[in-house]
């Protein structure tokens, strides 16, 4: 495996769903491939259903109180009953998440290009970015609430933007820089300008890194939006809804909202996956199981 | 005298049914103590597979294979052989000394004994000054010498080498070949040496087994009747070039 593949693989570090990715066969949708995919996951699916049934059964049997452990049936019925409220809150939060994602990623892309181009900038920015990544960025939420008005979605978007900015910037810069020296020499030998080198060599090379970080960022953005909401703001967003329901011990309602958050998160992730396949159809073959 | 290697009709098939691949077929090979045998052939002729059968890293699917008159498994459990691969496979978190001690630790040697043997081996390959260095501080050739020292640390009767110098430059390669011959002379160990390089095979061995692919077979055996003491002069002697030509022609014949 080449150095580059290793780096790509490792940049999936804490990326949850990438643990599954390698199982999607390269052949895509052939019957054999689907059967193979199903064969691997059918047992897990079956045992999942069994667990849900057991959960339901045992909580009923032992009369476990709702506040200790809600039953799946209660969660589902709450989900259906509060459908409108929960989804409307979900979409408001999604708006904050996507907005912040957009701002953060754009800023990250611009700074990455600058960092790749100018060494001085890079040597200054990268260590800051790495250090900032280690800090609890959500602690900025109260500051943004005060700067951008606690009721405005912008205050939450700002938190998401900062959270998303650092990993995307770090990874994209890495991708732009860690190009095979021989490719760079090739460009020099045909007297390519640094802009052309950027376009033809660095940017295509950086795409896998970029998408890896976008996948992480998509998951982070929804979570960051919800967490930012915990620091105060309008009541009709997911974060406030969850904490309000929890404070009233209405846990099935809270779980229903979490279910919405998970669905939105996975959907966002899958959209990025789709974008990745669109932009880099050749890359899928790199992700085979070890 | 025991046969170090005694292979009769050995074969190896990978996979099953429609996808089965016959990597080796009808391998007959004998080696006596102190022999130096090379396996040479084009890619895919199964020479590395054969080496791994001897090492009990793979199991034959047919035929009989005895190492020191035992099954390969038993020979492995008895630690009868040491192995050197193309990449030095040194553990980069251990010093050179600790790398050489690795097999000794696994074989439950006492600490003093381990230390003593490691020193001895590093002396033998002339790397005693680097004992406390880390692998990344050493050149490729030096790393391979450490790998060889490690393979000999527990004094096996057989040394298996799988294209050990393939990753080195030509000059280092020739130096390393000289080293291996020296070690072989001093320790009397038996060696099975897999290589791509005709001059290397001729320079080092007593016998060269030429292999052909699809399925892997030994197509000819060429006895190298160069004097046992070999050096730079040997590399320039007429007989050396004749033997190289013989091996080359045997390889060509095998391919047609």
């Amino acid at each position, binding site marked *: 495996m080449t150095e580059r593949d290793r780096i790509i693989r*490792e940049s999936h*570090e804490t990326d*949850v769903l990438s*643990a599954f990715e390698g199982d999607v066969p390269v052949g895509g949708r052939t019957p054999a491939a689907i059967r193979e995919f199903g064969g691997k*996951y059918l*047992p*897990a699916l079956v045992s*999942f259903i069994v667990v849900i049934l057991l959960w339901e059964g045992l909580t009923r049997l032992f009369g476990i109180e709702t*506040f200790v452990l809600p039953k799946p049936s209660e969660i589902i019925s709450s989900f259906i009953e509060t459908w409108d409220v929960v989804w409307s809150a979900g979409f408001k939060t999604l708006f904050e998440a996507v907005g912040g994602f957009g701002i953060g990623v754009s800023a990250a892309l611009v700074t990455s290009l600058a960092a790749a181009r100018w060494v001085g900038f890079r040597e200054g920015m990268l*260590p*800051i970015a790495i*250090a900032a*990544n*280690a*800090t*609890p*960025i*959500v*602690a900025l939420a*109260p*500051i943004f*609430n*005060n700067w*951008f008005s606690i009721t405005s979605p912008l205050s939450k978007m700002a938190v998401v933007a900062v959270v998303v900015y650092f990993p995307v910037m770090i990874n994209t810069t890495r991708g732009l820089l860690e190009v095979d020296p021989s490719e760079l020499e090739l460009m020099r030998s045909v007297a390519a300008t640094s802009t052309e080198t950027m376009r033809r060599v660095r940017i295509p090379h950086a795409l896998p890194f970029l998408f890896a970080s976008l996948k992480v960022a998509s998951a982070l953005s*929804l*979570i960051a939006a*919800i*967490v930012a909401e*915990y*620091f105060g703001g309008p009541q009709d967003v997911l974060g406030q809804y*969850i*904490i309000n329901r*929890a*404070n009233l*011990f209405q*846990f099935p309602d*809270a779980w229903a909202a*979490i279910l919405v958050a998970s669905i939105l*998160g*996975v959907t966002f992730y899958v959209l990025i996956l789709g974008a990745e396949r669109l932009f880099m159809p050749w890359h899928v073959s790199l992700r085979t199981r070890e | 005298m025991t046969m170090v290697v005694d292979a009769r009709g050995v074969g190896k098939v990978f996979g099953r049914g429609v996808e089965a691949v016959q990597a080796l077929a009808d391998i007959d090979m004998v080696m006596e103590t102190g022999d130096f045998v090379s396996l040479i052939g084009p890619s895919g002729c199964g020479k590395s597979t054969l080496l*791994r059968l001897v*090492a*009990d*890293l793979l199991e034959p699917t047919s035929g009989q294979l005895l190492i020191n008159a035992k099954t390969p498994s038993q020979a492995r459990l008895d*630690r009868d052989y*040491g*192995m050197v*691969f*193309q*990449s030095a*496979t040194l553990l*980069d*978190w251990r010093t050179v000394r600790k790398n050489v001690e*690795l*097999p000794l*630790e*696994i*074989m439950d040697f006492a600490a003093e004994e381990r230390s003593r043997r490691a020193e001895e081996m590093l002396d033998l390959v002339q790397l005693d000054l680097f004992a406390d260095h*880390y692998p*990344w501080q050493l050149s490729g050739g030096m790393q391979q010498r450490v790998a060889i020292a490690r393979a000999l640390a527990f004094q096996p009767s057989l040394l298996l080498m799988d294209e050990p110098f393939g990753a080195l430059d030509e000059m280092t390669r020739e130096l390393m070949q000289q080293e291996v011959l020296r070690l072989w002379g001093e320790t009397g160990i038996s060696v099975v040496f897999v290589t791509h390089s005709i001059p290397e095979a001729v320079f080092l061995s007593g016998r060269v087994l030429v292999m052909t692919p699809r399925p892997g077979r030994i197509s000819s055996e060429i006895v190298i009747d160069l004097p046992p003491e070999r050096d730079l002069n040997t590399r320039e002697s007429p007989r050396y070039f004749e033997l190289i030509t013989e091996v080359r022609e045997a390889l060509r014949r095998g391919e047609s």
Partner: protein
Amino acid sequence: MSESAGKTSSSSFIRGGLSILAVIVVFVVLWEGYKFVWTALEWTEPVDPSDRTLPHTWDIVGALFQPAQRNGPILLFVEVKAAMFTLREALVGFLIGGSIGFWLGVFFVRSQTAERAFMPYVVASQTVPILAIAPMVVVWGGKLDIPQWLTVSIIAAYLTFFPVVINTMRGLRSPQPTTVELMRSYASSPRETLWKLQVPAAMPYIFTALKVSAAASVIGAIVGELPAGFRGGLGRDLLQFSQQFTAAPEKLFASVIIAGLAGMVFVGAVTLVEHRLVAATRRQST
């Protein structure tokens, strides 16, 4: 950083210190510069440069040395204490989650059946965004009479164990096939192969995960402290100073700085341990 192993540690330390100083200076210049320019031009977007929303940097630092409450200890003291409280919770969870993650990783690599059976659950556990539901979990725990700090530690453990499992597995499987063959040629037992080859090989991977988890644990701890009634940690203090913003904005900024430092200290500590155990013996490409 191939020149490590003690030779340049003191000079690189000084260099590191100087670059941190440089960063701080640049930051202060930008901050005060923004205030100055925006005030002169009477602009208020995106952030109002008045002292009420954007206090001077020296006022923020000064606030650290003022009493947090009337006649109480100085803010710095209070916040560091809160940071220690939060870090303790994070640390307990981090250690527990890290150990569970490591052993689970070892188990899954040893037994393919176990991996097939349980890995989907491990992955599924992470689709529940625990950070997002941390406050709810704390309320839930409170109802079950679990002490708040324990619930927060459990949250930190949950955040830590997944990356550690994944990276432990990756690391344990990372040695080259020839090295594994080498161990087999020594008739090494599975346990010996594990401890002499796989675990040392896995260390860089494990520490990568631990550094990420360290940051996540601190965030999880802070977020878990947000529900009403939680005393003593950074989360509550941040909320409180947020409410006091109009009266004393410097206090919020000051405590945010302390919170940021707390995260850096934690990750820094893990990095130091990593340097001890890992980097010194290998040529590392950061």
